[in-house]
């Protein structure tokens, strides 16, 4: 009964109460000074990048150093980031090192076997005339040399040179992975930045909505719950700005991570609008099937596998091991010579198993090429669909929806000026105009990122380690590479 009577005494609707206050901004809004740097406490000085990698040398050449940054760089365009990435992304260097490693392996595989020097002392202590021990019947030195037959070394070297060739294609692929990732994250950062701007416009509209609701309240034209709703909308718009800001920071940080420098400050500058003509599906598929570095690597690997088969096919042909030398025969008390030749008789082991394995690997690689083609086509089907859908939507937002929203907003403003329409109606149109521009940016981002994948042979993942030339299951685990 008591609570009931208290409810009866509620002043709501019984005596004038000022409208509910505008809520204070959430944590973080105060830091969103649009004129200030993105991370005020982390402004960089000079070309000082604490996490710059140590110099790397390949074949005596120093892999180019990290990009010397100017202190006052404010806005970076795409080519800035691509240049930075080419110099600083570790996976590109990894890929180059892998080429050198394969070349080194080829060098090793073609080296001729070393001769062996033997000391021989035979029948040491055998009795000689006078029944006394002798230093031995024969003591001397021989030299043994394996003569490699059937061009095994040449084939081994060729095989690893071809694998180095595979690595070159893979390095190219890695370069695309990195560049594509730079482009993708650049466009994401660019879009994120535009979204921040539009979210701020929407925030101003929400602030206006909150003020308008209170103005209506004072005229008896809005209820208290309606004013509270405007506060909710305002706070949501503020959170949307914070989310967009956070998203921009993330995009920028991800971008500089791929680029491989520790940029902490700066803005991306560029245009989200694609410049060229739209790509047709036929173009997209033929481009990736004819020029994909992954496919080129797979084809090069097939050539390497052919040499592998040839190499294994000669493996059973015995090498000739010849040995010869001179010594002193203590029995005959004269200098004598020694000679020997050995040849392994390929009676049981004619390397049949490995030859078969190499042939199967070759056939596997043929299927691998086909598999790669199909995988690329499957991926292209998906990426192209996303590209096309986003392009269609973004184009129509550009061509029709945004201009219409803008005109609707303008006409209502003029109407408001002529005293013919209420301000809340104008605000609705304003929000719709800003919101349609936000949607356009979202789809343009998708257009650009998918376009990058289509033109860049679907390669991405610029911080995954560059793959080596050999897939699992290949003959490699021998002491001397062959």
């Amino acid at each position, binding site marked *: 009964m008591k609570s009931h009577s208290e409810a009866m005494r509620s002043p709501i609707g019984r005596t004038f109460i000022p409208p509910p206050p505008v809520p204070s901004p959430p944590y973080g809004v105060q830091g969103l000074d649009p004129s200030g740097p993105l991370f005020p406490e982390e402004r960089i000085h000079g070309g000082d990048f604490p996490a710059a990698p140590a110099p790397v040398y390949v074949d005596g050449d120093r892999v180019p150093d990290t990009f010397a940054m100017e202190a006052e760089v404010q806005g970076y365009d795409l080519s800035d980031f691509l240049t930075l990435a080419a110099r600083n992304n570790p996976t590109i260097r990894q890929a180059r090192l892998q080429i050198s490693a394969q070349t080194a392996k080829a060098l090793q595989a073609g080296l001729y076997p070393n001769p062996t020097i033997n000391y021989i002392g035979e029948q040491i202590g055998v009795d000689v005339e006078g029944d006394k021990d002798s230093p031995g019947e024969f003591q001397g030195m021989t030299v043994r040399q394996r003569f490699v037959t059937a061009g095994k070394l040449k084939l081994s070297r060729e095989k690893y040179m071809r694998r180095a060739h595979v690595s070159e294609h893979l390095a190219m692929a890695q370069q695309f992975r990195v560049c594509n990732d730079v482009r993708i994250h650049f466009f994401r950062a660019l879009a994120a930045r535009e979204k921040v701007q539009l979210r701020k416009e929407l925030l101003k509209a929400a602030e206006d909505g909150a003020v308008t609701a209170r103005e209506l309240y004072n005229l008896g034209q809005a209820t208290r719950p309606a004013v509270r709703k405007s506060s909710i909308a305002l706070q949501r718009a503020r959170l949307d700005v914070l989310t967009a800001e956070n998203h921009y920071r993330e995009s920028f940080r991800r971008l500089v991570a791929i680029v491989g420098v520790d940029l902490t400050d700066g803005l991306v500058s560029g245009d989200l609008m694609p410049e060229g003509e739209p790509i047709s599906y036929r173009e997209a598929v033929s481009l990736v099937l004819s020029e994909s570095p992954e496919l080129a690597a797979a084809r090069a690997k097939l050539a390497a596998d052919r040499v592998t088969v040839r190499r294994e096919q000669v493996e059973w042909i015995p090498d000739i091991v010849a040995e010869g030398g001179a010594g002193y025969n203590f029995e005959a008390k004269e200098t004598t010579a020694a000679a020997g030749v050995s040849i392994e008789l390929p009676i049981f082991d004619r390397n049949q198993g490995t030859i078969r394995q190499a042939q199967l690997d070759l056939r596997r690689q043929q299927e691998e090429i086909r598999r790669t083609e199909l995988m690329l086509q499957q991926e292209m089907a998906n990426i192209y669909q996303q590209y096309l859908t986003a392009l269609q939507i973004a184009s129509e937002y550009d061509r029709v929806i945004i201009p219409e929203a803008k005109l609707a907003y303008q006409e209502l403003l003029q109407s*408001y000026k002529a005293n013919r329409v209420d301000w809340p109606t104008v605000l609705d149109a304003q929000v719709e105009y800003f919101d349609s521009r936000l949607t356009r940016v979202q789809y343009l981002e998708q257009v650009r990122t998918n376009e990058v994948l289509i033109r860049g042979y679907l390669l991405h993942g610029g911080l995954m380690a560059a793959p080596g030339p050999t897939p699992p299951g290949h003959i490699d685990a021998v002491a001397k590479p062959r």
Partner: protein
Amino acid sequence: MSNTEQRRSFLKVGSIAAAFALATERLHNHAHAQTPSASGDAASAADSTPDADYDGFSRFKPSRGNDPDSDYYLGKLVPGFRKPAEGPAPFEAPDVPKLPYKMDNGVKIFELVPMAVQQEFHPGVKMNVYGFNESMPGPTIEVTQGDRVRIVVTNELPEDTFVHWHGFELPVQYDGAATLTQNPIKPGQTMVFEFDIHEEGTFFYHSHVAMQEAFGQVGWFIVQPKKIFDPPVDRDFGLIFQNFHIPPTHTVSDSWAMDWNWHTINGKSGPYTTPLVCKHGERVRVRLLNFSPMQHHPIHLHGHTFWVTGHEGARIPKTAWVPRNNELVGVAQSSSFEFIANNPGDWIFHCHMIHHMMNHMVRQVGPRIRDDASVDQYLTNLRSRPPVDASHQESFATPGYPQKMQGMEMSEDFMQAIWNRKEVRGMRANYAMAVKGLMTVVRVLPEDLYDLVMHSDQQVEKGAVFAEIVRRFGDPGAYQAAPKMKM
């Protein structure tokens, strides 16, 4: 207007008024010296005229009369200056043309064309409605009791129509009550209506398709009596009041709407309504037709008490006349207001329905009520809006503020069109801010000022005629002219 300018314009008006003084005396032979001279004392001039006084009621100054039962109480039967022999005063509906006729064997032949029209409610604001002969409301048909009329109706609408002759006791086949009495007049087709008119009074014609009526299709059909109504009037004005609902950014009236945001008197909306100008002391009749779709109009005249002397259909016997300040005129009803214009000045004459006292009322929120905010800021840069200015004046501490419409802007073109009409000459510079929607002005002017306003080519300063009336009849020491507007 500066003080010097005011003085200069007073002098000019004064001298013009003096020049007309002689003519005035000659014109009003039965009420000579009735118009106070420019320099004279109004009250004494009026009092000195026998014809000015009717049983305690004065033709020239606000008065009631000695006895409510007197024929002259509140000017009830006080005649106008016009002699009955001159016939009825011409019917005048400002802004509405008169439909010409041809005679054929004693039959008056009128050609009426239902059609879509663009009607200029406000200067440059051309609304899409239906009317007749390029006009909304349609042109006035004016005949005399006993005439035979033949009305040739040619439908230029893209749809069927009917025309009903509202109030006439005519042969049923010509009643126009849609397919109850006739086949539709198809687009492009003509139908001839011919009947004798034995009635006298205030009638009108209108489409008998509901939405066409709501869309504006109406016109006066005035029948002058064979025997002139007694007492004779000097002025016989006609005003048709209508409501329309026209959405923002639009020009087509939504006749389906149940709410109205544009209001017209004779197709014009205040302040574009044309004032009714009469001379001091005249007997004035205003016939007012409410042809709004749904809304009744309580009509109020300032500064005078009028007699309701007739409705649509017929004149009211004098014993049933009612004196009023405010007369409720229902939908499709017409009231005749008669009064002696004995109180000089510009008097507002308006519907008293609050929401009819201005067009398209909008909520008073947004930039128009905010400090330092203007819509132009928004229009200059559509891509990025200005930050909201939430600072409000202290008056915002008053619950309910603001009730007065804020930030009303009238363009230069608009103001020029308003002031281009002779009927408004010499009115206060700010008068347009006061006359909105279903409002017009009855101007009661001493003869010299009437001639100055209506007939002279003189340049008349804004506010000069009003100030002169204050000078002659009011308390000039306490009067402040309107601030000069930039226009």
